[in-house]
């Protein structure tokens, strides 16, 4: 693994146990506590963003060679069956739709095609959808580890997971919809996010507009310079 990166790259509802282990466990709609050894285990709720996060966390760790797909199937989204379809069929390169997927919105848009292909080659998918017994899952993980073929022979792929909105989000406050001026509450029309008005100043208009925004976060105040 590349020491310059911290694994796993995408945060989420999961536990990391031993990053050198060969088994990752996806428990679909519900977090299931699993004893014993594994690399990473956690839930994956949606058939698009959720699966993208799984892919990114798997291909960034060549030690992972098995993905146990288990836990309760997610009603409507059919995330388990969609992930299985992705593994078996891949995505349509033009539309990014997972081929033969049954889920509601089965699109992988934030992972490049080579990342998807790598995911399909790096791991063996173990279908245990709708198995909820943590002991059974734990025993399967232990059995698989005995068949570990060793790390995948190519370097880890690191993808910075960023939502599409960041490319398209409006930098200018004036482009947003003011919902509650009393609280500085805005609606970002590009993402439907209800957010707070940030104090900002435009410092240059030419050759492109550059603004500075004052942002408050849990860790303090940030000045964010943006070129639109």
């Amino acid at each position, binding site marked *: 693994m590349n020491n310059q990166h911290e694994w796993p790259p995408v945060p989420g509802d999961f536990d990391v146990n031993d990053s050198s282990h060969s088994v990752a466990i996806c428990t679909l*709609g519900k977090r299931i506590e699993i004893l014993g050894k594994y690399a990473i285990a956690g839930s994956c709720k*949606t058939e698009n963003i959720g699966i993208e996060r799984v892919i990114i966390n798997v291909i960034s760790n060549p030690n992972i060679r098995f993905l146990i797909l288990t836990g309760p199937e997610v009603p409507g989204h059919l995330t388990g069956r969609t992930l299985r379809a992705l593994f078996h069929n891949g995505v349509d390169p033009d539309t990014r739709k997972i081929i033969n997927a049954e889920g509601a*919105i089965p699109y992988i*848009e934030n992972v490049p095609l080579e990342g998807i292909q790598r995911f399909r080659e790096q791991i063996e998918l173990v279908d245990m959808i709708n198995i909820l017994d943590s002991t059974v899952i734990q025993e399967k993980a232990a059995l698989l580890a005995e068949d570990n073929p060793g790390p995948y022979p190519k370097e880890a792929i690191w993808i910075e997971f960023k939502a599409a909105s960041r490319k*398209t989000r409006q930098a200018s406050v004036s482009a947003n919809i003011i919902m509650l001026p009393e609280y500085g509450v805005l609606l970002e029309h590009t993402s439907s996010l*209800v957010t707070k008005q940030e104090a900002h100043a435009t410092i240059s208009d030419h050759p492109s507009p550059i603004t500075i925004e004052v942002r408050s976060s849990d860790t303090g105040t940030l000045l964010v310079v943006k070129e639109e």
Partner: protein
Amino acid sequence: MFVFKKEQQIFDFGGISVGGHPGENPTVLIGGLFFKGQPIVEDTKKGTFDKSLALEWIDTATSMVEKTGHPLMIQAYGRTPEAIVNHLTWLSEHFKGPILFESINAAARQRAIEFCDEIGIHERVIYNSINLSMKEEEKEALKNSSLDMAVVLGWSPRATSLPDRLKTIIEMVDVAREIGVKKILIDPATLPVGAGYGLEYRTTIAVKSELGLPTCLGPHNAPSAWRFIKQPDFNDESIQTSSVVASTVAAQLFATDAIMYGSMIRTKEVFIAVSLISNAIATAIAEANSVLGIDRLFFDPPTHQ
């Protein structure tokens, strides 16, 4: 069709999840029973009513819940202690979902609190409502009961601006917690057309964005008291229903988690309209979540296509 930055609380009211981001849980619909003027009502003081018609309404509503996925709660009104007990007795036997109760008579409300405790239905009963005019005696009765779910009416005649209204709501939430209420629905109160109707929709957005609490409204009160549709040319059922439906879906779009739609005589129309808009919200939220990179489940309503 909003995604709030503020974390949204979800409470379980008798098996129904209420709250969260718009579209995360299905909008809950609250039908009204035993209100004066409803064709089922016979004697408002004694609490007698046409049981077979009431049962028919409940069956229709149960069927609409199955078809649309939108949960149902029923609000029972009672003018007197005798009436409210009669209504709650019958309703608790014929409807297994959450029940709200309401009365303009404090003695009736207090009797209802005691009665729900006595017959052990406190886990699915919601008191409506904790408000500024609530007397100490009634607060004590609620505090001493096992009821812990309530609507909090955040309204004061003096609160004329949004910050004032939100301040009133926060004060009433504190009162609710002091008297042992754990699960709350914030109702910013619907005002008559021309006298404030519309401000409650702004307030529900503010409650979600500033407090992250579940919201409810009775927007049907605006068209119900609207003189315009009392004129002879307009005073027919289709116009009354379409106005109630319009006010309901407006509330749905403005992030109201549970909506009182008035008389259960309009159940079918309300559920159909809410289901339509629910489909729109689901599609919009799916795209918004994708743009924002949010991995959050949302209610996926049947399209019936």
